[in-house]
């Protein structure tokens, strides 16, 4: 297990470097002078020249990349052009809410999706199966903003059941839970479809496997067969899918945060891009890319827990 984790961590180093290069290029490619950006719009030409020298902008590009790496590793991502506060501080405030939102989405959508997919496979061809298929096809065809707007309009506004603007406080408080309910529901609804579909396919495959026939033959109840012998094996491709869909989840989170004014990294990124706040945009995109990496790492580790064969093959 540890071995597998260490290997995965080593493998993510080049990708991490790629992500950082990406952030660096982002600042290089913007149609503006980074020194002028850092100095701010009211700076004198002398100050800009001084900053250019301080930042090493007169040096070769690869040296600059080294300097950039050093700065990022020390947690220095520059200063926001709009609020004039450090980018890392703004991001620090936004990471918590985004993590909360993703957690609150996965915590109900993944179990429900897996349950629906398993039920559909067990009752294959019956009404329940058809309903689950219809739900998942509709789910993967619906834009997340449509679900968000509908929930906001009815549950939030017309029926006044739940708040729909901003974050209400920590998750363990009642206000916090109420405020996260609609965003988490929105994000979860687009995620249930793919999970249910994949679980169904995987469970169908496992249901016809030899070891399941053996389990039935030795007289286990159908419930025990499904829970112990089918589900665990079916979970492996499902976990893979969750990793593959991490980008989908991230995209959904960006849109959901924007709709509900949820103070997360996605909303920060979109706001920064629209306001041409390049340092902040670069920082927020870096954090989102990192989140994608981390989700994939976690998924890989879960994979090793669920499927002991992974470790042996390395």
């Amino acid at each position, binding site marked *: 297990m540890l071995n597998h984790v260490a290997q995965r961590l080593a493998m993510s180093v080049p990708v991490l470097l790629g992500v950082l290069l*990406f952030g660096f290029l982002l600042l290089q490619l913007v149609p503006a002078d980074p020194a002028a950006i850092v100095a701010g719009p009211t700076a004198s030409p002398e100050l800009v020249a001084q900053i250019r020298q301080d930042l090493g902008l007169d040096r070769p590009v690869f040296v600059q990349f080294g300097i950039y790496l050093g700065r990022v590793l020390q947690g220095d991502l520059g200063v926001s052009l709009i609020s004039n506060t450090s980018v890392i501080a703004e991001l620090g405030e936004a990471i918590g809410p985004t993590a909360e939102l993703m957690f609150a989405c996965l915590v109900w959508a993944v179990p429900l999706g897996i349950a629906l997919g398993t039920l559909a496979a067990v009752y294959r061809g019956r009404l329940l199966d058809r309903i689950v298929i219809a739900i998942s096809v509709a789910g993967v065809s619906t*834009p997340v903003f*449509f679900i968000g707007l509908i929930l906001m309009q009815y549950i939030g506004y017309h029926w006044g059941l739940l708040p729909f603007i901003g974050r209400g406080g920590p998750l363990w408080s009642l206000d916090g839970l109420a405020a996260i309910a609609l965003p988490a529901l929105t994000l979860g609804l687009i995620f249930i479809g793919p999970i249910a579909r994949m679980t169904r396919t995987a469970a169908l495959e496992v249901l016809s496997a030899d070891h399941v026939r053996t389990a039935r033959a030795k007289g286990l109840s159908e419930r025990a067969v499904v829970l112990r012998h089918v589900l665990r094996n079916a979970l492996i491709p499902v976990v893979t899918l969750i990793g593959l869909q991490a980008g989908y989840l991230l995209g959904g989170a960006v849109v959901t945060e924007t709709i509900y004014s949820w103070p997360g990294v996605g909303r920060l990124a979109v706001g920064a891009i629209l306001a041409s706040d390049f340092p902040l945009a670069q920082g927020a995109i870096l954090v989102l890319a990192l989140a994608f990496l981390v989700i994939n790492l976690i998924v890989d580790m879960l994979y090793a827990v669920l499927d002991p064969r992974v470790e042996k093959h390395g």
Partner: protein
Amino acid sequence: MADIAASTPAPSRPLAAFGRRIVKDKLALLAALILLIIVGAALLAPWIAPFDPYETTRRPFIPPRWSEGSLPQYWLGTDGQGRDMLSRLLYGTRLTLVMGLASIVLGGGIGALVALLGVYYRRLDPFIMRAADILLSFPAILLGLALAAVVGPGLTAIVIALSIATIPDVARITRSAAIVIMGQDYMEAGRAMGLPDRILIWRYLALNCLSPVFVFMTLRFGQIILIGAALSFLGLGVRPPEAELGMMASLGRDALFFAPHISLLPSLVIIAIVLCVNLLGDALRDLLDPRMRNQ
């Protein structure tokens, strides 16, 4: 020359078979019909749109014909600036489809071409696959955000981002299909006859990889439309006054509680397009990969 022609692998005729199957599959038939109507309406937008989609009037927030307070000339009502919703939907659908098609053709084309070259010229393969791996670690939405930051929000940024995001997946599918084809006897035969690489790659390899790649791109098209619409919704896509469905849905957000049709109608058109494309893609996959049919 006649011998060569005879030994050329007969390309299967997926379109004809697909047509036959669709007629049997009621749901796929319905999806094809609806999609045809939507695409047709979008193509004919300049001729069938009742109003100029950009012309603002003093009659904003008019609801659609089936609600109270509607006006007979505005079938689907007007938006916050008094522009005719039906006309804007027609033009918006057009841009959404163009955005999706351009991305899938560009990204899919590059991905498939690169993968074919990699399979045919083995030495290129490791580099191409490594590059695809790296691209895979950047989800489409991030590419979209990054490109919008660099080149500024707009249709170009979105199409480039969606194309880049499509390249690695299409490359992988094409590669696995092409590797199988490379092992076929007719490839060996073609080579033994001394056919030039150009013909071997296009007529022998590419044509025979076409169907799995086409199915994948169809299923992918729906996703691309969704991601593109989401990026537009965030304000990173088409600039006003031009109309695109995701951006139209976003424009209506401020009026959601008293004029919901401004946001919901464009969203419904997106759902219709993506749902139909997905249903057609599923039918196509069942046809070409019968192993999956029972699942």
